[in-house]
């Protein structure tokens, strides 16, 4: 079997370092703005927590019957860090085995984790925005409050902007490196 190039080896280290930022910075942020919140409100999603103005957002959402957000309600905050941790460990295995095929599998795994995370996030957002308390004081016919997966959306008096935060960008960067190096390794192997 073919060995990984030096660039490929370096990329493994880089990807692990990039993913390690998930424990230092938030990965996603949802910013909200309304006239009476000139400074804006912000919810910061970490790999293992949700921080920022969560209490205030919870307080506001009760008018329209949305569920309150609590850290303990998210199994993701346990299995996501574990998954990423294992993935980083597998990176070291890839490095030790020094086989191109190992690198390819590692990239596929990353793609799977990434797609699953987004699917999971979307599913949560959907439930969060659609599962409304029928006894809510304010009911707007036909209105649901699903935050945007990525980008901007106007929800009643709030403008909502959803985007990656620092660690999220590193995560995306890790994906770009993995895909790029995979292509690079593949080409090298064909060239030989």
């Amino acid at each position, binding site marked *: 079997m073919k060995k990984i190039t030096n660039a490929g080896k370096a990329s493994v280290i880089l990807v692990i370092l990039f993913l390690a930022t998930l424990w230092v910075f938030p990965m996603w942020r949802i910013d909200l703005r309304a006239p009476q919140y000139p400074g804006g409100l912000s919810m910061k999603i970490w790999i293992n927590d949700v921080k920022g103005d969560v209490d205030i957002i919870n*307080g506001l959402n009760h*008018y329209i019957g949305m569920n309150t957000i609590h850290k303990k309600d998210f199994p993701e905050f346990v299995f996501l860090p574990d998954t990423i941790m294992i993935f980083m460990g597998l990176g070291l295995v890839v490095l030790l085995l020094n086989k191109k095929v190992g690198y390819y599998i590692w990239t596929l795994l990353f793609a799977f984790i990434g797609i699953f995370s987004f699917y999971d996030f979307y599913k949560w957002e959907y439930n969060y925005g659609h599962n409304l308390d029928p006894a809510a*004081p304010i009911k707007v016919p036909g209105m649901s409050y699903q935050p945007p997966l990525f980008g901007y959306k106007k929800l009643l008096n709030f403008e909502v902007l959803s985007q990656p935060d620092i660690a999220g960008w590193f995560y995306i960067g890790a994906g770009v490196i993995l895909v790029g190096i995979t292509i690079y390794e593949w080409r090298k192997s064909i060239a030989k």
Partner: protein
Amino acid sequence: MNKLLLMLGAVALIASLQSCKMKSADSAVAGDAAQKVYVAPGKYDEYYNFVSGGFSGQVTVYGLPSGRLLKVIPVFSVFPENGYGYSEETKAMLNTTNGPIPWDDQHHLELSQTNGKQDGRWLFANANNTPRVARIDLNTFKTTEILQIPNSAGNHSSPFATENTEYVVAGTRFSVPLGDADVPISSFKKNFKSTASFISVDKNTGHMNIAFQIVLPGMNLDLSHAGKGPSHDWFFFSCYNTEQAYTLLEVNASQKDKDFIVAVNWKKAEEYAKAGKGHKMAATYAHNTFDESTQKASTVIEKEVLVLDPKDCPDMVYMIPCPKSPHGADVDPTGEYIVGSGKLAALIPVFSFSKIMKAIQDKQFEGDFYGIPVIKYEAALHGEVKKPGLGPLHTEFDNKGNAYTSMFLSSEVVKWRLSDLEVLDRVPTYYSVGHLMVPGGDTRDPSGKYLVAYNKITKDRYLPTGPELCQSAQLYDISGDKMKLLLDFPTIGEPHYGQACLASLIKDKQVKFYDIAKNKNEFVSMGEKQTKVVRTGNRVDVYMTAIRSHLVPDNIEGVNVGDEVYFHVTNLEQDWDVPHGFAVKNSTAADLLIMPGETLTMKVDANKQGIYPFYCTDFCSALHQEMSGYMRVSPKGANVPLKYGTGVVAADAATK
């Protein structure tokens, strides 16, 4: 016919003649004044301007240069608007040895200083009628301490502070016998005294204590200021009525050509106090403090005060003759010049600190006043500002070596130079100006941008409002050679004196809400699950929470006529600008305005049977109107069980 025409013509001519008119007092406002005071919507003012409320008893806060009212801080008067003086937590702030007093006359303000510069920590305020000094915390804009002053009356020369806020002073305007002795009023000369109290201020907590009182002969101490730089160790009080009149002061206290500036070496006084030269005198006075953690005010009645007699403490007090009935002693930013403003004098004497020191060294005394050495006028004098105007009252300073003196009688501000005492400019005020204020103008570091004149009379300046008219403030631009009037704005109560500091000094350290986790109020409800109603005899304690948009509990039954109901309302919000109000129908207490994370208590006497709605009085949310509840008060002895809750709806059968 011709004659008739001629006569008619003459009448018409006379009628068309304008009668001669006095020059009107219309102000000439420069073309760009509007631009200079316009603070666009959403923009902040450059300065906070704290203004005394006079007979309102409160302190008001304005923005400069816009003159917009930002807040009324309740200090010495009850304030139904937010329950100050009515809620169980704040009642004690107004306690005195004569019980709670709902009002006072608030004259002067002083911002705390470090190294002679404003440090943005506290604001001190005096009460003139029932002598007290208050401390306001500038993180919360709340009155957190009020100290009563014994052996005094008319606490006018207060609350001026030394350069590091080591002391805040309180001086007697209406001399009284010490220890409230029962003596004939006519024994004034023998028995009446004025005292200069030095209140120490803890440099970390701000906590106040009367360190010592200097006992001075019976006379009227007036405004004072601490020395600066070279004169750091000294305090200068002006005084009037050295004639020692006790009736018809208007005439009898205005006889002498000169009264005094009393120079007190407070460092020396401090040493004498430490060395045991004073004596402890029994005196009762209330000391009220607001505890931030329990969110409750409490009163301690202090029992004694340390008194220093100048007779036992040589070299501590000197008198400097000053024409005539001076209203104040103002010290320039360098600490070298002391300006006496004799309100009945036709000139402004300026004393030199270095000359005073030399005169003391050379013993250039012209005699003594009850044993206190009187320095020769000329020996202390730097010079006199000649013909400044009528009724010089108060002087503030800029950062370019100029002084600004208000002229009460001639209603004007006069700008003059400290070095050669030359009058440089004068502008009218509308009308009868009292104090002036330059931001930092009584510190080592004045601003040279604005001056505010605080006026007593406004007559034709605003739309008339019946017999009682507002008093006012006027903003002047003093950045150029000529002073320019920019703006008039009405004030609350009587604006005696003000302080102003750059907004940047305090705006970013404002407390936005109280951390509910740190709420140590004994009646706090930490969450809705902790709410309850507890009966102890005829006392009923309602532990209630408020959060948008409901109160828990909002149905209360089992209260009987004759019960005392205490509503302890905790605002569970943890966000800025989400207060909840609370009021109960027919309650004789004022409403509560509860900040996020705070607990306040309203006592309601259940003295009549009925259903009493209660509700949130501060529009808090889209469902504010729904934020209400009911208390049922049953007849005395009724057998209604105690029952409370929120969101419990009875089954149809039970509702009869």
